[in-house]
């Protein structure tokens, strides 16, 4: 068994510590707190305007930093003159490739190491210089006064031309990042020969950009040799390690605090250059520095879901057996190797039973900002191809699309050498989702009505699984109970808006029999918590909740031992409920936590919990099936998404509300990916981004998202995956969405648009080609 090299992309390049392992915990039966739709523990802060995000922070003497960025897609910086800028009022520092600044270098992915301000700018938006000034306005004005001499180079903006002879070279090593990766099982030639129908189709997705509502940014402050960064990040330890490595500092002297952040979706998993720049500006000036990017900078320089080109050839027998699948995928990492085809083939490899599979992935370089993991890297794209192909196969053999999928639900992870899943809810997702949607009835109704008008109705389904989402070690959590019965949870993980803090407080409350709001949480601060991996990969809950549970159980054990001694009963007869020690046998035996003499004497008890390993030779995987109904105006190419039903097996539902939040948010992001979002580069002329603003780059608004969305949680009662039974939900929720819409558009119109986003531009053109409209 060989793990997919990208399976744990969210911890790539990070050396993970080994921790102890908490002993096995019994699976929960019925829970009292976990699973309830409890409001967020930090709801007040987030609705009252009192939550302090990094950009809200003002420190005494604070300066404002700003970064000058290369306006060209490919250029050499031959000279930078900052004299004029440095002399402007309020300007306190100016850094460039030519100023000595401890020769900071920045390790990129895959061992490329460059100067912080690399004179060889390979994308529009690469950092060229930075300034710090007394006001943000002075900093911006100073940037404009910096004179840079660029020697423009030929650029490559379209990855489809990357390997053509004579294509401009993005890096000296060429325009391909690494070798083409080939995966193979069985014999596809034999599989195709066995098939009754073989279909072959090309698909393409345009590049999507994360654009969280909050801009990327941080505040850096030095206190002697110690650096503190208040950072908008998904993982404070990621930032600590990278900044320390770049600046040659011990971890102990780099403190990163990330209490509130306004969304990341993967773009804030890794450390950005600006954080190092802010630290250096603060060091140079001996003043705190706030550096917040502009919206344009976030569109250019802090990641994207790269465009992908896919071809899928698939064979099926009349009985629905998928005999072979062959997949070719290419994508664009951007200006450096950054996972341009990361996990693109995983849906094809592992979603359905198929003995003969071959995939080839080619990662290409272009002169555009590097990719970053974006909510389920590779998966929505791979599902866009696979799930539309499944519908085409079903149609070709006259089978219902849901039935064909159900026919091919796997119980083992074929791409991992046939290891069994700890739980496989895919069949239930498909069947219960179809039932909740009214799949058969609505398809019959549309068929009966004949869909004759200009506006046509259609329904579609798509399924998916998510390669990660099982979590795993390491994680260390500390729970402390005070003599007054209040509790403190200390964990390193970030709450990126998903409700991590709330879920973890519920886990503690479940074990300690206290109210969740009695649990105070200290988190996301390298100065005061234990190591945690970044919050990404849909692994935060399955990684952290078992560790938190183990820590709470450790405290519980100590409390019950104290109580057993004081009450003179067997410890095994005691448990915790409603702030009291109670007997499971004798209602008369009870003692309030605050009356426990042992606790009063000690003032507090501390428990430590560690994340144990996942079960050996098993795969932990979330599954999903989504159903949607659309109306397509064939005169205008407008698609109205009418409703969605999303059935998900992400294991135990830890909190109904935060679970629904992930599902509905994932669908909405999938609507953006499928219908509205696209980075447009001026490929034929300048290579610059054309839609470098937030109305030409179109996020879905309330008018683009149905108000009718239903979440159908499937809980397979997975007692094997980990001590809480939860698998990840954040990423699975966005994987099938676009493909379900694509299938519904086809159902409505008979036109298959294989290229996202399916906006009126593409749909009208496709309909016209077929003679509609």
């Amino acid at each position, binding site marked *: 068994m060989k793990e997919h090299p990208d399976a744990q992309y969210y911890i790539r390049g990070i050396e993970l510590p080994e921790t102890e392992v908490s002993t096995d915990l019994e699976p929960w039966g019925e829970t009292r707190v976990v699973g309830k739709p409890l*409001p967020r523990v930090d709801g007040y802060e987030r609705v009252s305007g009192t939550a302090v995000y990094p950009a809200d922070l003002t420190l005494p003497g604070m300066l404002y930093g700003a970064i000058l960025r290369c306006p060209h897609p490919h250029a050499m910086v031959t000279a930078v003159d900052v004299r004029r800028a440095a002399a402007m009022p309020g300007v306190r520092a100016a850094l460039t490739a030519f100023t000595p600044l401890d020769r900071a270098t920045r390790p990129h992915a895959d061992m490329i190491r460059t100067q912080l301000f690399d004179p060889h700018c390979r994308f529009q938006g690469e950092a060229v210089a930075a300034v710090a000034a007394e006001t943000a306005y002075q900093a911006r004005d100073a940037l404009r006064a910096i004179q840079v001499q660029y020697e423009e180079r030929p650029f490559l903006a379209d990855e489809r031309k990357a390997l053509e002879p004579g294509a401009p070279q993005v890096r000296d090593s060429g325009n391909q990042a690494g070798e083409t990766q080939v995966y193979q099982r069985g014999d596809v030639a034999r599989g195709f020969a066995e098939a009754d129908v073989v279909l072959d189709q090309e698909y393409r997705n345009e590049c999507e950009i994360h654009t969280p509502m909050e801009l990327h940014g941080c505040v850096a402050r030095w206190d002697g040799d110690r650096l503190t960064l208040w950072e908008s990040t998904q993982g404070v330890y990621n930032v600590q390690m990278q900044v320390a490595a770049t600046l040659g500092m011990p971890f102990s002297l780099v403190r990163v605090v990330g209490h509130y952040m306004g969304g990341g979706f993967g773009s804030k998993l890794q450390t950005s250059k600006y954080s190092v720049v802010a630290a250096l500006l603060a060091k140079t000036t001996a003043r705190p520095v706030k550096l917040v990017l502009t919206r344009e900078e976030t569109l250019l320089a802090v990641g994207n879901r790269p465009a992908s080109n896919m071809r899928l050839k698939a064979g099926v027998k009349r009985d629905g057996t998928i005999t072979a699948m062959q997949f070719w995928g290419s994508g664009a990492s951007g200006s450096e190797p950054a996972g341009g085809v990361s996990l693109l083939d995983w849906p094809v490899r592992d979603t359905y039973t198929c003995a003969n599979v071959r995939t080839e992935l080619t990662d290409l370089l272009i002169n555009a900002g590097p990719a970053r993991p974006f909510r389920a890297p590779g998966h929505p794209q791979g599902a866009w191809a696979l799930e539309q192909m499944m519908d085409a196969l079903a149609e070709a053999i006259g089978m219902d699309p849901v039935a064909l999928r159900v026919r091919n639900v796997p119980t083992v992870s074929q791409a991992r050498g046939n290891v069994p899943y700890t739980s496989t809810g895919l069949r239930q997702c498909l069947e219960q989702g179809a039932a909740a949607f009214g799949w058969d009835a609505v398809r019959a109704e549309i068929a009966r009505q004949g869909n004759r008008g200009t506006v046509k109705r259609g329904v579609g389904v798509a399924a998916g699984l998510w390669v990660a989402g099982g979590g795993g070690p390491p994680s260390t959590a500390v729970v402390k109970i005070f003599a007054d019965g209040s509790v403190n949870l200390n964990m390193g993980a970030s709450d990126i808006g998903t409700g991590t803090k709330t879920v973890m407080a519920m886990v503690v409350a479940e074990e300690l029999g206290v109210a969740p709001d009695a649990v105070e949480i200290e988190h996301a601060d390298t100065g005061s918590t234990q190591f945690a991996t970044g919050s990404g990969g849909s692994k935060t809950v399955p990684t952290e909740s078992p560790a938190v549970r183990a820590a709470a159980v450790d405290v519980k054990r100590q409390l019950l031992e104290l109580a057993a001694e004081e009450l003179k009963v067997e410890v095994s007869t005691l448990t915790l409920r409603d702030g009291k020690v109670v007997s499971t046998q004798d209602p008369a035996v009870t003692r309030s936590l605050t009356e426990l003499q042992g606790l009063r004497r000690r003032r507090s008890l501390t428990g430590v919990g560690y994340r144990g390993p996942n079960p050996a030779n098993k795969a932990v995987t979330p599954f999903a099936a989504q159903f949607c109904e659309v109306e397509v105006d064939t005169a205008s190419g407008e698609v109205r998404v009418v409703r969605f039903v999303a059935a998900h097996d992400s294991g135990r539902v830890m909190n109904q509300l935060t679970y629904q939040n992930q599902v509905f948010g994932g669908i909405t992001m999938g609507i953006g990916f499928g219908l509205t979002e696209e980075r447009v580069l001026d490929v034929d002329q300048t290579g610059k981004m054309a839609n470098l603003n937030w109305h030409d780059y179109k996020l879905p608004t309330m008018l683009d998202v149905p108000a009718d969305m239903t979440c159908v949680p499937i809980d397979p009662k997975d007692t094997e995956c980990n001590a809480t039974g939860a698998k990840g939900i954040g990423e699975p929720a966005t994987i099938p969405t676009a493909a379900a819409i694509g299938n519904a558009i086809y159902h409505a119109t008979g036109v298959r648009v294989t290229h996202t986003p399916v906006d009126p531009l593409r749909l009208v053109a496709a309909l016209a080609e077929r003679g509609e409209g």
Partner: protein
Amino acid sequence: MPRPRPTADPAVITLEVNGERCAVAFAPHKTLLEVLREDLDLTGTKHGCELGECGTCTVLLDDAPVLSCLVLGLACDGRRVRTVEGMAEGARLHPLQETFADLGAAQCGYCTPGFLLTAQALLDANPRPTRDEIKAALAGNLCRCTGYLKIYEAVELAAARLRGEDAEPARETLYGRR
């Protein structure tokens, strides 16, 4: 070539912010967003794009929802501004704030202040909005987390409470529909 930015002669205006009259001095080219965040220390209003494209910086100006990044501070002389900090009475949250918190309409929370104020303007004008009316009123506020559904539910529940009804969240709001 950049022109030197005048540092002297800040503009002084008087405006009413969250029910209180105040005088504030700032550089004349500053937007209302910058004046609120930097000169009045009201950082609850968030900065999203500076081009009026996301609704994150929405505040109420004379009771109408406006994008504070596209309003000059100077244009607010003598006018009334309400920000998220002015919605609660002391520590008691406005019904919209309560329902946004209770129903999960705020996730990362960054777009939330803008949504709250836009929704308040809607409910002030229309105590019983339909979903389509909510949609039309809030379509200028982007949210990248929630998928908007919980925002509808929060606005509807707050509307009911503001009408004096003893409303509780629907079961399907909390547990999903089956």
